[in-house]
């Protein structure tokens, strides 16, 4: 009996999960710490969420940080004002960003290409200014403080995810598994294949009778829901939410994570987030000019590494004008 050959995708899937599940065993050995790993997983989920739209539907949003931040504030408000219930805060945070994203999606879904990107940036900034200006509710520039994630009560068992960093890591990982599982199933469904068809050739898809706007709207809304779920987790991770979570620079950072890892690969954005977060953590500890280095990373990735780390899957060919230039 010959052993079954594993495909490249399956090898990556197994490698990713083995690495994620064993983090507490090796993270100290490579000079990291467990909260950094939680950060990687949360921002990895954010990058995968934006990639649902960017890599698998072919629409680039540069305002997704708004939904990330809305999720964060939603979770923070729940814990601070409603109840000390972690799961409820995740649910309400996700709903806040997701529902607002779906409503906004109705307004922008007819835009294309660079115009779509510009409109998403501009609308994203609306929520940034709300968080920044609405001092009474959000704490303004100082951010939303005064809440902490609550221990989990699962029947008779109580898990202290507040003080036990390892327990919280595994909680985040469980959330990550659920979200990416749903994402994977969606992409394998006929709906997901339709999104790929739109990405590959929107005009042809339209001629096949596919309602393009409805699908793009659904993809946009779903990615907003995933994004605000990631944002809610981020608030739990930091016990804090601030306006920079919604700022367009955050959107740019999340997009570059996705591109760095490879937007055509399902797990690419997670890999990109790992590299970006570790690099940023390291750079900000050695230099105050880390912003320049992050900028340099953007430039280098675009010029020399546009397909990303997992980009061997397939290159994105020229789609727009082919004029020599």
């Amino acid at each position, binding site marked *: 009996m010959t052993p079954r050959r594993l495909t490249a995708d399956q090898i990556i899937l197994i490698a990713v999960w083995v690495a994620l599940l064993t983090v507490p065993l090796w993270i100290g050995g490579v000079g990291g710490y467990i909260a950094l790993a939680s950060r990687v997983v949360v921002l990895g989920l954010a990058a995968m969420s934006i990639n649902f739209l*960017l890599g698998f539907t072919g629409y*680039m949003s*540069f305002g997704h940080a708004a939904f990330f931040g809305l999720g964060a504030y939603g979770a923070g408000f729940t814990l601070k004002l409603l109840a000390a219930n972690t799961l409820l805060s995740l649910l309400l945070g996700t709903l806040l960003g997701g529902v607002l994203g779906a409503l906004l999606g109705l*307004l*922008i879904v*007819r*835009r*294309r*290409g*660079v*115009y779509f*990107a*510009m*409109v998403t*940036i*501009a*609308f994203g*900034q*609306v929520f940034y*200014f*709300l968080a920044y*200006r609405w001092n009474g509710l959000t704490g303004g520039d100082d951010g939303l403080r005064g809440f902490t994630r609550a221990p989990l009560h699962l029947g008779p068992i109580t898990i202290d995810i507040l003080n036990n960093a390892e327990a919280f890591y595994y909680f985040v990982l469980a959330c990550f598994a659920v979200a990416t599982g749903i994402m994977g199933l969606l992409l394998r469904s006929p709906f997901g294949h339709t999104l790929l068809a739109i990405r590959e050739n929107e005009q042809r898809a339209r001629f096949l009778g596919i309602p393009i706007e409805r699908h793009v709207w659904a993809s946009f809304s779903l990615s907003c829901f995933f994004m605000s779920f990631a944002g809610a987790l981020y608030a739990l991770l930091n016990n804090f939410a601030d306006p920079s979570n919604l700022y*367009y620079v955050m959107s*740019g950072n999340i*997009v*570059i994570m996705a*591109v760095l890892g490879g937007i055509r690969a399902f797990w690419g954005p997670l890999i990109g987030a790992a590299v970006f977060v570790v690099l940023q953590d390291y750079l900000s500890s050695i230099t105050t*000019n880390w*912003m*320049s280095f*992050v*900028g*340099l*990373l*953007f*430039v280098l*990735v*675009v*010029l020399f590494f*546009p397909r990303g780390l997992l980009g061997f899957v397939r290159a*994105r060919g*020229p*789609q*727009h*004008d*082919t*004029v*020599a*230039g």
Partner: protein
Amino acid sequence: MTTLLLFNVTNGLIIGAFYVLMALGLSLILNLSGVINFAHGGFLTLGGYIAFALSFHIGFWGALVVAPFVVAAIGILVERTMIRRLYGRDPLYSLLLTFGLAFILEDGSRWYWGPQGLPVTVPGFLAQPLSSSLFFITGYRLFMVAVAAAVIVALFFFLRYTRLGLRIRAGTLDLETVSSLGVNVRFLRSFNFGLGIFLAGLSGVLAGGQLGLIPTMGTTLLMPSFIAIIVGGVGSLPGTLVGGLLIGVAAGVTTVFWPSASEAVMYVLMAVVLLVRPRGLFGEEGMLT
């Protein structure tokens, strides 16, 4: 109340003039090359600081004239070495590249010139208020608006009546045809990029004289310029002009009644335009949409 309103409308027009200068440059580059230049604000900041550095050697007037050209030259260098490689690729990549450049320009200015604001001295006769009742209309403010207006008029004349301007406009509509008619598209795009950056540099110099210099000055002007383009209609330069003035005045008037909503009103305006007339006030259907 009337004075306050007048004060803020004037302010709105002045800030609107900056939005217009900035947004026209962005529009030129976007229309011809399909690049959203996120680094536009960074070039504006650079313009202000370069003028500041030059003014010690060649004075305010010399710096005002020379600095925008220096910035434009840097812009062309950036276009030739980096942005050019991304034409014809997914616009995602040029967006990310200029995003990174914006970081580098802002952080570079902070590193070289420091995070604190630097004052720019304008010639004494321009700093005086023109009359005591309309204290807010200083000579410098009038001067800024006059320069901005002159440059905008010159730009429209250039695009309308010169061969190069005609080619830029034609290229906006159909670059492939323009290329096949024997026009050097590489040069056209470089020149056009430089022209856009020149406008950013000039706004930087003018803004520095009014507001002083801080490393984030360009970034704060970038987002309103985007909105100006969207409100006016992507692809239309007159639209960008109207859009910029409109959001400037809207923000100015809102400051009188509800100061903390002065940013929000621009976005409200944008949302309304997108709802009622998705292509923007002067946009043409199908243009980059």
